[in-house]
């Protein structure tokens, strides 16, 4: 079972896709197949933490089959503490996305759910691939369903805004991954292998030509930074969040890029990533502040969520590039948190939008009485996002902040902490405007009256997510335990290659990157 569980997780959604394509598009049939199939996938992913050996270093559940002999591409998959919870997260969010689309997707549901399940396979593939060409394959494949479904099921189809958002998302990520492919081909030309461990060893041995290797690592960094997105490369995100169907928007940002940054930038090129770190830290800290400040002035909740997401993703980036053990595990945990909280918020905003056909927060108001379940669960998720202690957001942010404060730089940590305070301001502001304020805007106050509460299925789904937020918040060690053994090996090998925690003050970004390591 352990020997083929990852293949199973990859194949089950594909089988569901084929089933949907072959069966007729009648009523809710495709939706039911997608729901059952994604629940089955989720159960399969739960096999991983149940049989994972926390103390064992390296990859587990490995499968390695030759796919092509020349060029040597293998179907090589495996998980370690870093990817373990991310795979489970994909499994968990799959049924959540189906529930979120249950009412919104009425026409052409066959196409929607078939593409949606394809996306699940692609994302799991990204997290488990240990062959870089296989990884690249899944990485590119994951762009297609997002773009197609946004164009076909987006919100503003009439004026073409959805199509533009889809195009923009695709071009940003696809253009950035063109240099990545060149970099991969270059590595292959010099090592004759796409295997992760082989490449890691080759880079560490220092036999590859230096300055070109530097460009290779930059190509990797840019491809992932666009996908996260890191500040400055985030142009696709606000549009996509406003236009994409909920189930697609909740998976488009964050985890794929962040995971890739850790696995294929920091772990693969520790020394070179270390040199890029001061820049990334600066971008991340400013990104936290930027996201929070822009979220503060948004009038529409999709945009608010977009900028809030940029802020919390910047938190993860900050944790990764501090090169401290605490920051790194905080970053991974925060990636999972962001997935869980974001999914809950997206689902609930989706319900509001679908019933009221507006995303202007001022159009709502006083919903707390009318939609009690929605209000309660929304408040919990909102508080988790701003990092209230005992909820999951707190643990991740605390680990990142403390890691940064102790190991990296007090002033950058202070800037990041300022972002946390601002996030409380915009999130509480949103809760106030939507659920508490009296009667809403006088002219457009109708939205509040037509808004509906969560259905039974939606309530259960969001409640599960809320319980999870609490569970991670109260017992973080259960979740970080598996990560730590993996991250310790990472940090050890990084430190061995001279990539110690990045000590710097905010003014020294340029000086330190010019001078290499400090």
């Amino acid at each position: 079972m352990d020997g083929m569980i990852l293949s199973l997780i990859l194949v089950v959604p594909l089988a569901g896709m084929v089933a949907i394509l072959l069966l007729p598009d009648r009523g809710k049939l495709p939706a039911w197949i997608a729901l059952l199939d994604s629940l089955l996938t989720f159960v399969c992913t739960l096999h991983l933490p149940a049989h994972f050996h926390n103390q064992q270093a390296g990859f587990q559940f490995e499968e390695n089959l030759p796919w092509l002999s020349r060029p040597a591409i293998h179907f090589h998959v495996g998980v370690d503490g870093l990817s373990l919870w991310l795979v489970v997260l994909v499994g968990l969010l799959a049924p959540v996305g189906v529930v979120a689309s249950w009412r919104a997707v009425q026409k052409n549901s066959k196409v929607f759910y078939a593409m949606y399940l394809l996306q699940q396979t692609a994302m799991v593939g990204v997290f488990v691939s240990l062959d870089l060409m296989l990884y690249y394959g899944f990485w590119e494949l994951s762009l297609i369903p997002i773009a197609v479904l946004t164009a076909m099921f987006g919100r503003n189809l009439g004026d073409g805004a959805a199509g533009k958002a889809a195009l923009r998302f695709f071009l940003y990520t696809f253009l950035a991954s063109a240099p990545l492919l060149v970099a991969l081909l270059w590595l292959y030309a010099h090592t004759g292998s796409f295997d992760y461990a082989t490449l890691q060893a080759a880079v560490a041995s220092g036999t590859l030509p230096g300055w070109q290797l530097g460009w290779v690592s930059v190509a990797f960094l840019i491809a992932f930074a666009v996908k996260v997105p890191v500040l400055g490369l985030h142009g696709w995100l606000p549009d996509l969040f406003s236009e994409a169907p909920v189930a697609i928007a909740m998976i488009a940002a964050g985890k794929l890029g962040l995971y890739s940054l850790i696995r294929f930038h920091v772990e693969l090129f520790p020394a070179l990533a270390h040199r890029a770190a001061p820049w990334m830290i600066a971008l991340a800290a400013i990104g936290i502040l930027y996201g929070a400040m822009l979220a503060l002035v948004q009038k529409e909740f999709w945009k608010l969520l977009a900028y809030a997401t940029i802020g919390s993703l910047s938190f993860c980036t900050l944790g990764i590039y501090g090169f401290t053990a605490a920051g790194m595990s905080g970053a991974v945990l925060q990636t999972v948190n962001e997935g869980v909280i974001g999914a809950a918020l997206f689902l609930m905003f989706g319900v509001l939008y679908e019933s009221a056909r507006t995303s202007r927060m001022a159009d709502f108001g006083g919903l707390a009485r009318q939609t009690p379940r929605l209000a309660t669960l929304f408040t919990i998720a909102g508080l988790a996002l701003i990092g209230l202690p005992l909820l999951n957001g707190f643990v991740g942010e605390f680990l990142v902040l403390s890691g940064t404060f102790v190991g990296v730089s007090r002033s950058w940590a202070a800037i990041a902490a300022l972002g946390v305070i601002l996030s409380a301001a915009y999130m509480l502001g949103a809760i106030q405007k939507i659920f508490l304020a009296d009667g809403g805007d006088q002219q457009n106050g109708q939205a509040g009256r037509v808004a509906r509460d969560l259905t039974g299925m939606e309530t259960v789904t969001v409640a599960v997510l809320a319980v999870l937020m609490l569970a991670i918040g109260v017992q973080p060690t259960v979740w970080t335990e598996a990560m730590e053994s993996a991250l310790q090996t990472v940090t050890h090998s990084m430190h061995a290659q001279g990539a110690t925690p990045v000590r710097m003050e905010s003014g020294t970004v340029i000086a330190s990157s010019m001078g290499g390591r400090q």
Partner: protein
Amino acid sequence: MTPDLFRILPEVILTLSGVLVMLADAALEPRADRRPLGWLAALGVTVALGASLWQGSLPAGTAFYGSVQTDAFSTFFHVLICGIVLAAILLSIDALPEGQHHRGEYFALMVFGAVGMCLLTSAVELLVVFIALEISSISTYVLAGYRKDTEKGPESAMKYFLLGSFATAFLLYGIAMIFGATGTTQIPEIATLLPAARSHTLVLLAFALMMVGVLFKVSAAPFHVWTPDVYEGAPTPVVALMSTAPKVAAFALLVRLLYGAFPLLHALWMPLLWIVAILSMTVGNLAALRQQNAKRMLAYSSIAHAGYLLAALAGSGTEPIAAIAFYTAAYAAMNVGIFGLMSLVAGTSERRSTIADYRGVLAESPLAGGLMLLFLISLIGIPFTGGFFAKFYSFSTAMQGGATWLALIGLLNSGIAAAYYLRFAMAVAQPKNGKTAPVGRWGVATVVAIFAAGGATLVLGIAPGWVLHAASTAAQSFASITGF
């Protein structure tokens, strides 16, 4: 000792079935359904395809006083060309308008075109090369103008004919000059006699003229200007044929000339083709970005694909030949597929022409729309499709030859290309607005052709092993015979 006739067996079968189709056409009532003629032609091409495969089991060798040579290289391209022509015939059976004249001739011309293209890939005598090229070109000139009642049809055929004959004239002039310089028109002999050539200038001139001719046929920049006009005016199933099969044959000829006749000039043609490759991709992609007409857009994109293909020539050893062979196969599969679907979706009278006309196809017919997406994704070069591995092999070959910059420019170009393919794909995915014609009906022949193309695109993306093996066998057999 293999009889000479065996070396041209596919061509013989194709010629006979072409003649048979014409005779049957004459024997039929004027008002009778011409569709069976299409099936007859398809049968003939299938037999020829089988004969080509059988030819692959023969020992490699030449025939007719060294003018034709069959080996794994010619077999690969024979099979590919027969496959394309077969698909194009099947697509035409359903797509040609009812009651149109000359349907019998149409199918016969497709088969005769196949004769020329097949012969082109096995000819090693420049005069046979020229005759083969003319056979294939004249058939396609006529086919391009098949819809003569439309405004663009005759223009398309006329342009193709004038520019095409001009290009063939260049080739012929080049052949004459190389004969003047070396005293032979046999490709292998040219390579051996080249160092003792009478005049170096004459050799260079001959080489340049021949390159112009061949690069015109593969529509590489700057010899590409005919492509969009011709594709726009020709019937879509014909575009499916002429955007692929003649180019496949021309690429085989290009390989034969570069590595078979002029390996000594390697240092000269390599940088030249670098430039042509970069120019083709960039010009093709930038022009395609601005097109509104779907066929014109794909025409410019085919120019860009010629550029990606030429990039492989920067590699060393036999790798470039294998990469080109593989690329032509993947390119043929996806282009036949997308044009086949466009022909199906637009219906017999081709009511859809702009990209916006294809809005709502996915919603209306998930099967047709989904397959269109598959082919467009493959043209973009997304993994798990043939288009990805094609680009992958081409650029990794270039990279192994040290041409990192070429690979980088190529891949950035494929990023630009993604923009217009995606615009098309998004139009297909978006819901309908306004009135567009309904998606055409699926006939048996169309289903077979499109599913074969779709299957090939997926197989080349997921399990390309055996095609790649065939391609590298072809390359090695080519190398061992020519001995470069």
